[in-house]
């Protein structure tokens, strides 16, 4: 016996019955038997027919065993209707969810009808009401059928009672495969329990609780029939059926593609950020390579010279040792010969007299390289805590060491007006990147030979304020509100990614600070950064650990990753 078919037919019969019941007041009141009624009635009859057809013939009572007769009966009843076509139409007919809405429309119509006393034109009115009803039914049906929004209705036990076309399309099931099933059929197996609990909780909430409830209104990962993950955006409403039972209406939108697209966008954004970092790193490396190669140049060169001087000295020493030997044990002519050689060599070999200079030069070179390397280390803060209290004056100093050569090359005068600063909790490496960005921008903005950059640091009760002022070309007024936008750049193609200031802005925001700019074309620009002295930790790296033990932290972490994939 095909229970599925029987169940489907029964369900349809029940729906038709429900509709009949709904239409009954109208029918009683006006004792009309119009098209709507006959349609609904034929729905009902056809479903019964379908039901009987689904039962194996031998199981039917003898009276019903002659199917032909029944079919014929049904055919007469539905007159010219083609049975199979009628059945197909029945399938797509308005179901429980629409009825809910239809009922309210109908009640409106009824109110209209019942308000005026029955008059001769009552018949016409009824007809009009029926038309209205039919139209709104048709309209709702069209909407429900064509919306890309998946809609389903579940009962208190979580059994699906209604699914629309879109819902079926999203999950890849036919309505038959879903209706009568538990709704967790569409969630990943390991999430079944979570969803069941959530559903139970939702169904038991008071009306008040429901109104404030928004946990379901987010993104979820669910499962397509073929097992592939889907991302949906969901929302739900709770309704009460005529029998007083609660139902949950769930709306789902398939955002899998959108999420993929968003992820791709995020990836390319990360790549661009990386590219910007690499490009500023590249520029910094270029500058620093020159800065390091110069002292390395004279360090290496002086060491080579030292080697030459050492050869001179060794050869001289050799002569003197020979001389000693000859004085003690040799001949006077040999002594005279050696003295002559010594005389000759000391005339040409004079490099050793410069040994002190060479050593001092080499040491100076080594010291300069050491300085640069430690400046780089200070700048990158590679061996320090990511998030810690820092004195921004120190950050500025270590950044200045890195860009010092830029100032020197362009002959830019640097004015430091540093006030005493309280420590602020910050990501020092990120703030250094901000200062590097702003300082290199300031240097690049200066195209004349009387460049001047002033850095001021101050604080008030709540914030530390840093101002970087240049007397460069300035920013056009129409560009001022765009400079922090990603990809906005006035530099020629290939010379700027347009992300420098956008990253700067992001970093300052991450510190709950503000960055602003004032500028006048031809006179220069001032960038002002304001960072709060006291601030609340926001990200996980700043948060206090809940437990010193890693196992504990894992269990604390898992529920959130289990339930929601919200980014």
């Amino acid at each position: 016996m095909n229970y599925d078919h029987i169940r489907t037919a029964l369900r349809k019969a029940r729906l038709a019955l429900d509709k009949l019941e709904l239409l009954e007041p109208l029918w009683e009141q006006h004792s009309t038997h119009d098209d709507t009624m006959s349609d609904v009635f034929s729905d009902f009859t056809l479903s019964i027919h379908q039901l009987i057809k689904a039962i194996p013939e031998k199981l039917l009572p003898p009276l019903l065993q002659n199917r032909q007769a029944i079919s014929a009966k049904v055919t007469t009843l539905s007159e010219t209707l083609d049975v199979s076509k009628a059945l197909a139409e029945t399938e797509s007919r308005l179901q429980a969810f629409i009825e809910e809405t239809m009922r309210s429309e109908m009640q409106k119509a009824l109110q209209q009808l019942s308000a005026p006393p029955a008059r001769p034109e009552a018949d016409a009115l009824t007809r009009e009401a029926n038309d209205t009803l039919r139209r709104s039914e048709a309209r709702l049906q069209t909407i429900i059928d064509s919306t890309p929004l998946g809609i389903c209705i579940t009962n208190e036990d979580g059994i699906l009672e209604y699914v629309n076309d879109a819902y079926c399309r999203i999950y890849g099931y036919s309505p038959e495969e879903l209706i009568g099933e538990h709704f967790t059929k569409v969630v990943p197996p390991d999430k079944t329990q979570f969803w069941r609990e959530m559903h139970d909780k939702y169904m038991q909430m008071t009306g008040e609780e429901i109104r404030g409830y928004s946990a379901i209104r987010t993104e979820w990962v669910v499962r397509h029939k073929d097992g592939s993950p889907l991302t949906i955006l969901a929302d739900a409403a709770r309704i009460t059926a005529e029998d007083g039972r609660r139902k949950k209406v769930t709306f789902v939108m398939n955002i899998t593609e959108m999420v993929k697209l968003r992820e791709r966008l995020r990836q390319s954004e990360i790549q661009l950020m990386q590219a910007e970092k690499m490009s500023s790193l590249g520029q910094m490396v270029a500058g620093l390579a020159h800065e390091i190669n110069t002292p390395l140049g004279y360090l290496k060169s002086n060491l080579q010279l030292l080697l030459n001087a050492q050869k001179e000295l060794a050869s001289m020493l050799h002569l003197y040792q020979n001389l000693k030997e000859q004085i003690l044990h040799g001949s006077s002519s040999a002594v005279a010969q050696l003295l002559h050689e010594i005389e000759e060599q000391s005339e040409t070999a004079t490099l050793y007299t410069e040994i002190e200079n060479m050593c001092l030069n080499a040491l100076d070179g080594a010291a300069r390289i050491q300085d640069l390397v430690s400046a780089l280390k200070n700048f990158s803060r590679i061996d320090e805590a990511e998030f810690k209290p820092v004195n921004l004056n120190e950050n500025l100093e270590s950044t200045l060491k890195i860009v010092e050569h830029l100032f020197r090359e362009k002959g830019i005068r640097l004015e430091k007006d540093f006030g005493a600063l309280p420590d602020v909790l910050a990501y020092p490496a990120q703030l250094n990147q901000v200062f590097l960005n702003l300082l290199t921008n300031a240097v690049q903005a200066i195209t004349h030979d009387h460049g001047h950059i002033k850095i001021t640091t101050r604080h008030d009760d709540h914030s530390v304020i840093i101002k970087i002022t240049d007397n460069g070309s300035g920013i056009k007024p129409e560009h001022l509100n765009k400079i922090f936008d990603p990809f906005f750049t006035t530099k020629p193609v290939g010379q700027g990614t347009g992300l420098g200031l956008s990253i700067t802005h992001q970093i300052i925001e991450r510190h709950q600070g503000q960055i602003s700019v004032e500028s006048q074309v031809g006179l220069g620009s001032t960038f002002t950064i304001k960072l709060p002295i006291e601030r609340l930790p926001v990200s996980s790296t700043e948060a206090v650990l809940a437990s010193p033990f890693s196992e504990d932290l894992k269990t604390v972490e898992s529920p959130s990753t289990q339930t929601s994939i919200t980014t």
Partner: protein
Amino acid sequence: MNTPKSKILFVDDEPQILETMKLIFRGWHIATTTSPKDALQRLQSEPFGVIVSDQRMPEMTGVELLKEAKKLSPKSVRILLTGYSELNNIIEAINSGEVYRFIIKPWDNEKLKATILNACKIAELYVDLREEVEKAQHQLADQSVELLFIDRLDSHLQGYKSLFENIYTCHFAQTLEEAYHILAEHKAIGVVACDSTLASTKGAIFLTALRTMYPDLVIIFMSDSKDAQEAIRLINDGQIFRYLVKPFPRSAFRETIEAAIALHKSYRENPLNNIKRREDKVLQSGPVQSQMPLNDFLADIRNKVSAKKFY
């Protein structure tokens, strides 16, 4: 090593570099300054055979200084000694500074000394090449200059053709082999424009080889990629005339070709104008006539280049 007669001017904003130079070149005629502006003033008042400059300096870049120096003292041999090789600077050094050598810090004292000694001799050589001047004038002075374009892409060759075939006798080659044979047959070719995709398969060595055989060739290198190391070799070994980055405007290419032709003519009129000829003379290497297959010849040149004891 004999101390050369010519005077050398060292320009670097780092005093320690200059001090080291003084130590390396003890007994030579040298002058040092930390200021490019000062350097330019000195060039106006006294003759220098060689000028060696740093690239990154406060007042002006090394390339800018050498470009000015070329105007003030065209016979001085120009050398750039720099801590960092940024390709754009190298291209500038070729195209506007016409530098003789591009040397990267840290350097090797002996190679530096040998290079600067060569440079001094090259500067001193003006008087020693009289007879070759006459010989050259006798041979080719009145002959017109022919062009050779080498490019892997036929479409690009067609482009050059449409631009120049009505004005000059042009030759075209799609492979280095072809180019090698065409040059052997057509002595009037004075300017070669070579695309990087071809040259780089054999490195800059092909162009170096061409100048070894035909010192008067003026070479234009065309590239759509940028490789700093290659560019430095093109200066130091190939002594190329221009480094053009594809795509370039037609007008710029036409001007470059015309400048190259003019330069080649000046080489024909007076080999002394050709620093390559002077260098060959100094190194006593002279033009090589090769009957070898191209690849063997290139291997030979490559060995010679890597065995060089100077930059």
